[in-house]
């Protein structure tokens, strides 16, 4: 296991979520769930981040913001879509201002279902993402070796 998966840094962005999933992401950081025991640190800077957590269906206003955050993140990185809205638009998919799931915009590696997603599910999703991150890192290493 490389250093990157021992202490991955996450960045969270709310793309028109109802807050339900956002506060559950925040709850993961607090004493009961304590995601920091996996070495995970929440950062506000996309250039520091390895894992991108997105909540909520994407609306028109957020399109450039999400693309921008994703573009700034160093490779390898993983994207975790959290909650029904980030997966497909959820109950809001028929709203005029909602474009749909996050995967319409950027590639998503792990989908965490639920409305709202429970902290246990979010932690499980992030840990799964770390496995993918490790694979991506190895693939990049091989490519660089050749």
């Amino acid at each position, binding site marked *: 296991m490389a250093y990157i998966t021992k202490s991955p840094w996450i960045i969270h962005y709310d793309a028109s979520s109802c807050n339900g999933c956002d506060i559950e992401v925040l709850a993961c950081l607090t004493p009961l769930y304590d995601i920091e025991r996996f070495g995970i640190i929440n950062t506000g800077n996309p250039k520091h981040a390895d894992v991108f957590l997105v909540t909520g269906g994407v*609306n*028109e*206003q957020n399109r450039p913001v999400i693309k921008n955050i994703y573009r700034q993140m160093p490779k390898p990185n993983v994207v975790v879509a959290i909650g029904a809205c980030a997966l497909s638009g959820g109950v809001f998919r028929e709203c*005029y*201002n909602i*474009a749909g799931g996050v995967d319409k915009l950027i590639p998503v590696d792990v989908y965490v279902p639920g409305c709202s997603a429970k902290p246990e599910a979010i932690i499980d999703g992030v840990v799964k993402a770390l496995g993918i991150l490790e694979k991506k890192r190895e693939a990049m290493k091989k490519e660089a070796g050749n």
Partner: protein
Amino acid sequence: MTIEEQLITEITVESLLEEVKTKSDAGYRLVQIGCTRIEDAFEINYSFEKDYRFENLRVTIGEDVRMPSISDIYWGSFIYENEMHDLYGIGVDGMNIDFNGYLFKTSIPHPFRDAPAVTVKKVPKKMDEENKTSGGEE
């Protein structure tokens, strides 16, 4: 089950500012301004409250009527008036803070302006039926 009495007074656009001033002088606070699309008109409710007494002034306007701003009387009304402009496309004159349509940024302009899609669908159907029956009679 009625929790509280809710008074609704119908007024005209011309008397709006005067009526709002009366409310303000009587010590009411502005609760909200909200629009409803009805058929080919807009219904605008100005809600006020004093000592848990909830009252409304209702203005019904046609599609192209511009509204006067009440922000000289209630400074905080700009938030509702900008909302009214952005979502319904109703022009408001004389706002103290005018966002020029950038308070709510929507993918389609003035999404609430058009009458509900459901009624639009039903009207042609009915008309077709009427046409058919009237055609048969002829």
